[in-house]
């Protein structure tokens, strides 16, 4: 009996010792692992917040956490072993806890019998589950939050994406569209459609801006807008020239007053008017049929216009407005076509396709009228009494064998010292191969640097005038 009791008590002592050791281990591990979990979670959240770092450091963090936990476990085990009481104090503790009043201690020391195992043997050694599970739960929550939180992936490029330069062709197309937007004589709906097309192209990913397809489309757009603008400019110029020529013929006929026309002159006049009408009609078709047509208002004015009745059908203001509109539109014409100049006389060429015919017609008409008295004081002569001075070329008429010189309507004509039959602001053709914008992939084409420069001292008009003179 005594041996059995002794055996039971010793087993109980061993169990208590192990339990106490484990309790000490838990007592140190639980808070430490909670702190470790907190640190791991904070580190993990920090790393996950950095783009692409979790892939690099996540596994290392896990390994470090596991290693630290093992380290903490070992340290706690060492601590638990150190805190584990010796055998006799533990026996005394159990003795006192069970109220044995040193009976167990005495028996352990070999004095007296072993006491009977009390019923309340397990008292005082129950686990405090709240203290055990609270840190475990906290750690589990922290680590779960870390595991479930998303990590920021590594971006393809660091920093903000680069801003790509718009291809040159596209830039040129945009510039041309802006030019078209500045021309109210053009149909702005068509211009807006072009602009929309341009914007949609630019909405494509910037990476694709320099793809072959994009460059080709941009170049097509540029060429299309450029050609259409040039065509509209040329058509407007043609129409303007037709109006100008019609006005000149009408002025010449008015100057003839009631003088009859020779049959040849009549015939030539009709042919010339037909040619003017045909050219105007062709220009009007161009203005209306283009992808970038003239504005409906302008088209309607031009369609209703009769070239041979300009003076009678249009008021001076309407005619001036019409001229301005055409002039504005004709600015779009290529430079080599010259510019439309209703005023003329500034020396720049604006040669019309029927310039020769017009000159021939005027010469053929042979309708000259003495110059009217000039307004104001004469220049270059001696005042011989009252009245205005004659035409500057009045005395030269006979000497030059010209039968009837006539005035061209023009603001500067009356102020010039001689009769200016025709002039233009046409610029010399310096370089037909001048750069006209990007054509392919930004490859610049250098001009010939004026190799085609005209060497003649005379402008074409001057040469033509001389030719007429010698006739």
């Amino acid at each position, binding site marked *: 009996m005594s041996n059995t009791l002794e055996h039971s008590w010793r087993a109980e002592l061993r169990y208590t010792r192990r339990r106490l050791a484990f309790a*000490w281990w838990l*007592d140190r591990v639980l808070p430490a692992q909670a702190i470790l979990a907190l640190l791991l979670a904070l580190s993990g959240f920090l790393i996950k917040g950095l783009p692409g770092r979790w892939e690099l450091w996540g596994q290392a963090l896990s390994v470090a956490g596991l290693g630290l936990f093992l380290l903490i476990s070992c340290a706690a085990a060492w601590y638990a072993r150190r805190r584990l009481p010796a055998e006799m104090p533990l026996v005394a503790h159990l003795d006192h806890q069970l109220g044995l*009043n*040193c009976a167990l201690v005495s028996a352990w020391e070999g004095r007296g019998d072993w006491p009977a195992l009390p019923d309340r043997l397990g008292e005082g*050694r129950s686990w405090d589950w709240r*203290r055990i599970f609270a840190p475990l739960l906290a750690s589990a929550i922290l680590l779960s939050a870390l595991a479930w939180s998303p990590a920021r992936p590594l971006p393809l490029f660091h920093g903000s994406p680069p801003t790509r330069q718009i291809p040159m062709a596209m830039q040129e197309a945009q510039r041309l569209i802006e030019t078209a937007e500045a021309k109210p004589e053009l149909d702005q709906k068509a211009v807006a459609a072009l602009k929309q097309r341009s914007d949609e192209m630019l909405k494509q990913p910037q990476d694709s801006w320099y793809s072959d397809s994009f460059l080709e489309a941009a170049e097509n757009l540029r060429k299309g807008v450029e050609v259409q603008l040039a065509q509209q400019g040329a058509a407007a110029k043609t129409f303007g020239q037709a109006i100008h020529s019609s006005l000149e013929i009408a002025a010449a006929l008015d100057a003839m007053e009631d003088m009859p026309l020779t049959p040849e002159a009549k015939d030539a006049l009709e042919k010339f008017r037909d040619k003017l009408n045909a050219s105007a009609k062709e220009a009007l078709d161009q203005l209306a049929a283009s992808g970038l047509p003239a504005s409906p208002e302008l088209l309607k004015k031009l369609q209703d216009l009769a070239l041979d009745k300009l003076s009678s059908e249009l008021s001076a203001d309407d005619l001036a407005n019409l001229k301005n509109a055409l002039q504005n539109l004709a600015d779009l014409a290529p430079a080599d076509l010259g510019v439309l100049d209703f005023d003329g006389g500034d020396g720049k060429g604006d040669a019309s396709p029927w310039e020769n015919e017009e000159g021939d017609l005027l010469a053929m008409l042979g309708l000259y009228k003495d110059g009217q008295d000039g307004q104001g004081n004469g220049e270059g002569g001696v005042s011989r009494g009252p009245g205005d001075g004659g035409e500057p070329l009045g005395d030269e008429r006979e000497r030059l064998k010209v039968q009837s010189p006539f005035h061209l309507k023009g603001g500067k004509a009356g102020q010039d010292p001689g009769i200016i039959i025709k002039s233009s602001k046409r610029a010399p053709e310096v370089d037909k191969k001048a750069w006209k914008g990007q054509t392919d992939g930004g490859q610049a084409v250098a001009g010939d640097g004026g190799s085609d420069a005209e060497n003649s001292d005379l402008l074409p008009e001057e040469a033509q005038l001389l030719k007429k003179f010698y006739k």
Partner: protein
Amino acid sequence: MNHDVLKDHEARDAAAKSALLVDAMERVLIGQRELVSLTVCGVLARGHILLEGLPGLGKTELVKGLSKALGLSSRRIQFTPDLLPGDITGTAILQEQEGHRSMVFNPGPIFANLVMADEINRASPKTQSAMLEAMQEHCVTSMGVTRKLPEPFFVLATQNPIELEGTYPLPEAQMDRFLFKLEIRQGGPESLQRIVMEREMGISPEVPQVMSSDDFIQLLALSRRVHLPEVLAAYIARLVDATHPGRSKAAEGVRYGASPRAALAFATAAKARALMQGRIHAGFDDVKALAVPILAHRILLDYRARLEGQSPRDIVLKLLEEIKPADISSPSVLR
């Protein structure tokens, strides 16, 4: 130290005799069983006991009854301010015998097994100090001759806590020589009723002799053979050590703590108590039960603690709360 193992049956016999003694003594101090038990425990521990209480509570009768019950010789000394040491220890007188004159020692009242020092605090310090040697060494020296006192020798002193004018408080050294200081308090109405019913004025209660002096001396020997576990000795040591200032939280307000003699008193008294309960080993409960009688009169409070109304008894109770018998810390995960 006697290492003979006390047998269970010896312990049981001793407990039975002790119980008889206690029962007999309770006839003297009716309703004061705990006090009687402590007195018997102190006697079994060979200790001197200081009884403190108001007059008329039966202190003198207790001593008389104890001597009768144990068959021991007893003397009563009434301490007064004019009492001289020689009045206690005895004096040599010139005596002529057969034509020769010689100084013959006339033993004082201290030569008895049980000495009742009534109102010990009324004697002068000089007289009180005469008790020191007798209480500690169990012998007296007179005229250069040391004479041994009869064994067993016990001093049961009383002092009155009131009427302190003209008294000489016992010095700390002398207080330390008392194993216990017991306070005699008046019992309740039931005790008083029994006293009225069973006593008569001027007639001492009859106390039977429950054991011979030899039996008592045997009991004293058995008390020494009670086993004192090592952990209990450690508990006693920690408890006594904790009475000193700065050694424990409970000792705040203590000016002087208990001496090593207190630890010895603990061990001896715990053994005696264990024997009275028929155990062959002392236990934690013995120490706890004896802590106040052993330590209270050995602790000297400082001025502040006295002003705060603390008593040594309160300090001892706090010490028992603070100092655990098995001082192992328990992890927080275990309830």
